[in-house]
């Protein structure tokens, strides 16, 4: 009984972390049809921003939830102005350019922080469920993921910016006819997407050690989750993170973590073969 609860928590945690990992990429891809392959490095920089801020004496939650997203968002803004802006509408070129950026950021972080693994401790203690100890931080991640999804939904449904964003997701030229410069919208979107990446990296940092190459572990998962999710932002993220999180944890518990990861990847291949437009390309059409 206790064990099944532990397994349930671990599954929810796996789903939540996939949602966090995918969110930034999904926003940028959904709105701008740009696949940001430097997404993993944005997360990595979020982690470093948190560690640096904590090292300077900032409260760890402030560092994770406010400072890291802001800093990474600003980095994203600079990247958008200098590079991405020139490549809109050229899907493959943006992928290649952001791939280059990812290498660039790895190199830059290495030069600044060195290659040694760093990290911070989890700020929430573990607690007991029956005979088992659970990492209390897992709950924090689950809560953050849920709040994040609700937040995105709320912004999209209730605010003016959300309305424009929904329009832009349907038709890129829609916003222009409403009198908003697409340039500004793209800039804002990329800022938000980067900030979300920074947030995810910051929140996940206490669980895993950080090295400049940490981003590589995230990007493949994020990429797979977003593409398999399909065109709808929230529904796509939720459904594909749900499928992959559960599949990988089932196999992790039953066999081993490696098999869990491989199962996730095989699930992705099968899913895309059966639903070439992603889950929400077939189901939940028209949802957000």
């Amino acid at each position: 009984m206790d064990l099944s609860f532990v397994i349930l928590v671990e599954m929810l945690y796996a789903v939540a972390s996939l949602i966090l990992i995918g969110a930034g990429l999904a926003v940028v891809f959904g709105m701008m049809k740009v696949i940001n392959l430097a997404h993993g490095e944005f997360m990595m920089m979020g982690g470093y921003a948190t560690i640096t801020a904590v090292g300077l004496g900032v409260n760890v939650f402030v560092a994770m939830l406010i400072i890291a997203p802001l800093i990474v968002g600003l980095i994203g803004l600079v990247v958008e102005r200098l590079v991405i802006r020139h490549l809109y509408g050229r899907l493959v070129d943006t992928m290649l350019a952001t791939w280059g950026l990812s290498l660039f950021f790895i190199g830059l972080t290495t030069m600044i922080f060195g290659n040694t693994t760093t990290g911070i401790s989890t700020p929430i203690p573990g607690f007991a469920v029956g005979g088992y100890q659970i990492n209390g931080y897992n709950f924090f991640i689950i809560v953050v993921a849920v709040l994040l999804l609700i937040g995105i939904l709320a912004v999209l449904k209730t605010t003016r910016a959300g309305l424009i964003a929904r329009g832009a997701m349907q038709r890129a030229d829609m916003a222009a006819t409403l009198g908003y410069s697409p340039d500004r919208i793209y800039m804002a979107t990329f800022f938000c997407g980067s900030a979300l990446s920074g947030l995810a990296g910051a929140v996940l940092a206490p669980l895993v050690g950080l090295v400049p190459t940490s981003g590589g572990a995230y990007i493949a998962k994020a990429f797979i989750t977003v593409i398999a999710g399909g065109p709808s932002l929230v529904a796509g993220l939720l459904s594909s993170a749900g499928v992959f999180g559960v599949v990988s944890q089932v196999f992790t518990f039953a066999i081993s973590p490696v098999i869990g990861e491989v199962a996730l990847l095989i699930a992705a291949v099968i899913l895309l073969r059966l639903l070439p437009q992603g889950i929400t390309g077939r189901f939940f059409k028209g949802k957000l």
Partner: protein
Amino acid sequence: MTLNRRKFLGTTAAMAGTAMLPRAVLAADTIKVGSILDTSGIFDAYGKPMDMALRLAVNEINGAGGVLGRQLEVKAYDTQSDMALYSQYAQQLTRQDKVDVVHGGILSASREAIRQTMRKTNTLYFYNVQYEGGVCDRNIFCNGVTPAQQAEVLVPWAMKEAGGKKVYTLAADYNYGQITARWIQKFVQDAGGEVVETDFFPLDVADFGATIAKIQTAAPDLILAPLVGGAHLSFFRQWAASGMKDKIPLASTTLGVGNEHKVLTPEEGDGIMVAYSYSQDLDTPANNAFKERWSAAYGDPSALHELAVSTYYGVHTWAKGVEMAGSVEHDAVVKALETGIAVDGPAGTYTVDPKTHHSTVDVHLMKFKDQKMDVIETLQQRPPIDTQAVCDLETNPDDNTQYEIQI
């Protein structure tokens, strides 16, 4: 596939170009020491201090007049933590630079990538890293600790400290981890215990949530963790975060080699049991003097670790062998080293074992405390008995295998 069986396809002298011509006379002025280490990329926490230690040793020797009256010249290549570059630079060192000795290689994968090249080109090779043991090759000298020197004492001690017989092993999934896990199983059984489960993790696994739940289901008395690299460090964090650290004790054969105890907080690290031949916290006159020399050369000595010190020993051991042989000629140096040369340094005495080309060293049982390693007990001059059991280069000098423990 031994050397004498090899019949190389000849290339004409014209094709061979300058690389194959006899070395120019002026090169005889210096003795060339090759170094091949990851000083960038994900393994640079290991490689950078090793590179510094190598240069420190070379500078010391040069400052004292060199070897055989000749100065040493370092030819160093950074393999960027990329296994493919190892073979490339090894060829460069042996065929183009024609160095007299090569020190380097960190992961067992990198050693195996270049060992045959060294052997083929008759270039003396020093591998100065703690590893899984069993390499039997007259061209290589390994002075790092092997499982019998380390795990054999660590396992029974940790079991005694833990006060139980059930052991859960978490090992890195490559040959170091695989072989070490088998040694652990042997030593646990020898101590009257039982390994309830062994899990292997590829080097990029960083999420141990499910594993921690599984461990609790198995409820062992002790966890032995030969985990390697930055990703695996998260296990120790997640373990502490789940509140398990004070319930089941931990021992590791690898944690701290890259100074990981300085990355973990005291709450995460304190109490973890390890065994190494060196720690910068050893309070001996030799070590304090060494740290001063290091500080004079590089400033802060906090990056120092066992692998760096082993490299330092490796260079001095080789230099002593050359002095004794009176030449840098390969076979003469090997013969001199096989007389059982001993070198004193920050970690005590390292003695070459003629039978296996490994080293007899002191081993310290230690616990992490406040981001330092606290020496609990020191075991003097432990020979590499695991390799000795399978390898005898005195009777079988043509041997060229890496033996693995059979269970």
